[in-house]
Every structure is written in structure tokens, then in C-alpha cells.
């Protein structure tokens, strides 16, 4: 925040400085106008680029830190926790029950996060209110099965392609939510213009479409991904 304040102040101070310099010459105040113009322009321009994004998103810390790396090492692969149900639907974030398959209200390790988990949730039989970075809005229908086990070879994608190397993360970064839309920032993309470097930097409809066009030469029909 402070950084921006500095910037904006500089912005206006430049303006002030110049106007002090320019005053005697320009009695019409036209120069003054130009200076005000530049000043205002700079302030709004900078706040538009730097302040606005900060204001637009609210930050939430996860209930406690989750070490994906540790768990994948212990459990083997993603699918041991994020598994497919018998009916083909995807389980997504594990519920307390599936955590309990390994954990008890006695911590297994000695991290304080696990302690929190054991005391706050396992002991109290409360589901952990995780913030889901990749949560899509209600209008989206996404079939993990179609992408990972579709009968056609191109359907066999790995988790990384869309979710990135989250399996290697040892800490959970804060979840950022768009105050207006309630979307996770990961959907629009970290970058305010939504410019992405990796396939997992963004999860908008266009990103799905790009891949679909590439794979089967067609974006697909509305109902394929909407409900």
C-alpha cells in the first residue's frame, strides 16, 4: 500500500513543483491547466494500475497451512485424496472423513498446522472450510472424468496441465476473492489484464476453449460445459 501512496504523492508533487516553476510566465493559467492535467492523469493512471487491483480483491488465509508436497510423498499421488467416485463424479477437496482415513485426533507429525487440524476439526468433527483456488462459478459444469479418463487418448490429461505444480507446494498461499464477482483470482488470472504464462495461470472459458479448439477443432457446444 505505502509504496503506492509514495508513488501517488510523487505524482502530485511533481505537479506542484512544476507549477511553482511555471507560475510567473503563465498568468492565463493555461500552463497551470496542463500541469493539473498531468498531475491528475498520473494519479488516476497509477491508482488504476496499482491501487485498484488491490482494492478489487479481498485476501483470505486458509484455515491452516496445508503441505501438498508432504502429503503426496506420504499418499503417493493426487488421486489418493482427490479421487473419482464410483459414479464417475470427482470428489474434489477431500472431506473430513477421507482425511480421517489416515489422521486421528492425535497428530501424526509435529507441525502446528496438523495440531490445529486435529484440535479444531478432527476433534470437533467439523469440516475444514478450505478456500478453493480453482472453484468455478455455479454455471460451469466440469467433468474431470471427461478430461482424465475419456475413452479417446486426448482425454488423458494430468492434473498439472490445469492446476499447475500445486502438488509440490509446501505452503498454501492466501486465497484472493474478487469483491464484486466472488470469483477466485485464479480464475481471471493473477495479472490484472489476465495475461498468462502457464496454462494454469488462468481458468477462464477462453482457456478451456483454446484447448478444445486445439484438441478437436471446435470450442464445443454450450451445454458441454454449462449447466
Amino acid at each position, binding site marked *: 500500500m505505502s509504496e503506492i501512496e509514495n508513488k501517488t504523492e510523487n505524482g502530485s508533487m511533481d505537479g506542484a513543483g512544476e507549477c511553482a516553476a511555471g507560475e510567473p510566465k503563465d498568468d492565463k493559467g493555461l500552463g497551470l491547466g496542463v500541469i493539473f492535467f498531468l498531475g491528475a492523469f498520473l494519479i488516476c493512471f497509477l491508482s488504476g494500475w496499482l491501487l485498484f487491483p488491490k482494492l478489487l480483491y479481498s485476501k483470505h488465509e486458509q484455515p491452516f497451512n496445508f503441505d501438498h508436497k508432504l502429503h503426496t510423498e506420504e499418499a503417493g499421488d493426487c488421486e489418493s485424496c482427490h479421487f473419482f467416485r464410483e459414479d*464417475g463424479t470427482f470428489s474434489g477437496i477431500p472431506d473430513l472423513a477421507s482425511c480421517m482415513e489416515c489422521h486421528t485426533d492425535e497428530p501424526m507429525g509435529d507441525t502446528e498446522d496438523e495440531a490445529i487440524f486435529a484440535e479444531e476439526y478432527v476433534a470437533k468433527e467439523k469440516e475444514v472450510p478450505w478456500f478453493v483456488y480453482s472453484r468455478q462459478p455455479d454455471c460451469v459444469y466440469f467433468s474431470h*472424468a471427461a478430461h482424465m479418463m*475419456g*475413452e479417446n487418448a486426448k482425454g488423458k490429461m494430468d492434473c498439472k496441465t490445469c492446476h499447475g505444480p500445486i502438488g509440490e507446494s509446501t505452503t498454501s498461499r492466501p486465497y484472493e476473492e474478487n469483491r464484486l464477482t466472488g470469483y477466485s483470482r485464479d480464475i481471471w488470472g493473477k495479472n490484472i489484464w489476465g495475461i498468462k504464462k502457464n496454462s494454469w495461470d488462468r481458468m477462464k472459458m477462453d482457456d478451456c476453449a483454446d484447448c478444445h479448439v486445439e484438441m478437436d477443432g471446435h470450442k464445443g457446444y*454450450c451445454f458441454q460445459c454449462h449447466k
Partner: protein
Amino acid sequence: MIQNTKAHKFGMVIDLDKCTGCGSCMVSCMAENNVPFKEDESRKKDSITWMRVYKLTNGKSFPDTEVVYMPRPCQHCSGLGDHGHSPCVSVCPATATDYGYDTGIVSQIYTRCFGCRYCMGACPYHARYFNWWDPTWPEGMESYLSPNVSPRMRGVVEKCSFCYHRYQLAREKAYVEEREIEENEYQTACTTACPADAIIFGDLNNPAHQVHQIVKPDPHPDPRNHKVVGKSRNPKVFRLLERLGTNTKVYYMSEREWVRKAGDSYLDGEWDEVKNHHGSSSSHG
């Protein structure tokens, strides 16, 4: 459009002689698709019923009166010449509704729709409904809503989707079992609910399926009216407003001639010539 070699063409045939007008299909549809309700639903012109059962009479006076009930879901038109330009799809300015060439199902995307209602004007079946009101439920009742169908917000158009989400669920199961879905894995909510077994739903492109065997759709354009494709070669089967060339995928069946006649408009004397004509190759059908 995708050149889908083994594209489905999901459709329905409704046996009007079996239909009892009991309304199970209507309620099953509403319950399946999170359709809301208002205190006064007797203003039928602003009452959202994706599946609506019409009451038809033969217009004769007592005691020769006859009555038949006609369930009317979205007809999932494939449009003039069967090219997928349904009356509604072709007019939507924002591509909020499209024709799935792989299923023959006409979609409606509530989050894309901005509520211009052009599609409603274009649909002669009144199968499209506008959310004039915010959807509301009595306290607590939201908790029976299904996550498989997104509740609609005020100001958008909605309609029957042939329970597409049921197709999706069936496919997910098939995916994990690495197989194709079977015909009866995907059935609409109205079909399964009908206690009179009046509705048969399935792939019109699948000769093995009952719906195909009953309808015997004619793949060629009707020589009398080239807009019409997929005319039934079964003399007891007809479509609603077939002459307009909307090429619906909901077929109706009745033994009674007056019922079949009620499916379309005819000039004087026209009926007698058309009633015996069933598709191009009907002679050797």
C-alpha cells in the same frame, strides 16, 4: 459445426392415447430442474413450466366430445432442412442458446442470456420462459435444490434442456468405466416419471432404439415440402407444426385422426391429401 461421425439425435415420442394428463411429467421436470414457483401460478402466460400439458378437444358437443392431453417440452428443433438453425438459436444475438450437433439438443445458457426475449418471440411452441421475477423459495425450501442444474436469476430466458445434466452424469460413469453410454442410461426426468409410460426417449439415429423404431424418421427431405426433414414414416406419428419446417425432435403418436390433424394447420381439404402421406420413401418404408 463438428463433423461428428456418430452423432446422437436425442428425441422423444409421446403416445397421446396413453397420456392421462396427470401432470407427473410437469412436476418431475420442475423438481429435477430447480424451477421456482410463485403464489399465483394461474396466470399461465407467466408461469414457468418447461414441460406443459395442453388439453385438446375435438370440438364436438356432448356426448361426442373427446379430449386428449398433449405434453409439450421444448421441441428441440433442428430447423429448416435439419441444419441446426432452430427458430430460437438463429435469432439469439448473444449466442446464449446453441444447437448441439452431437446431440441434437438446443441449449440455453442463463449466464450468457441478457434477456432480449427474441427467442421467445421466434418460438411458436411457447417452450421458452422468461424469469420476470427473482426466483424465491419458502424458508428452508432451497435445501432441496439440485446442484446439477444452475438456478436461474431474474431477467433471463430458460427452457427444457432434455435434462442434459442426466446425459452428463451418465457419460461420467461411462468415462470411468471406459465405455460408451447405453441408450437407457440417459432418460429425461419426465420420461422416467410418466406413470402411463406414454413418453419414450432416446436416440433417433439409433435403429436399435425403440424411439427410432416407432418413429421411423425419414432421412430425406419431404418431397412435398423440402424444409421438412425427418418426417415420420409411421402413419400414426406426427409432429407439432411440422409444416413450418422447424423439424422438431419431439414426435407425437395417436390412433385418432382428429388428434393427428390438431398438430398442424391445414387449408380446407388439404388434410385429406396429406393424411395418407408419410415421408418420401413411405411407399417402400
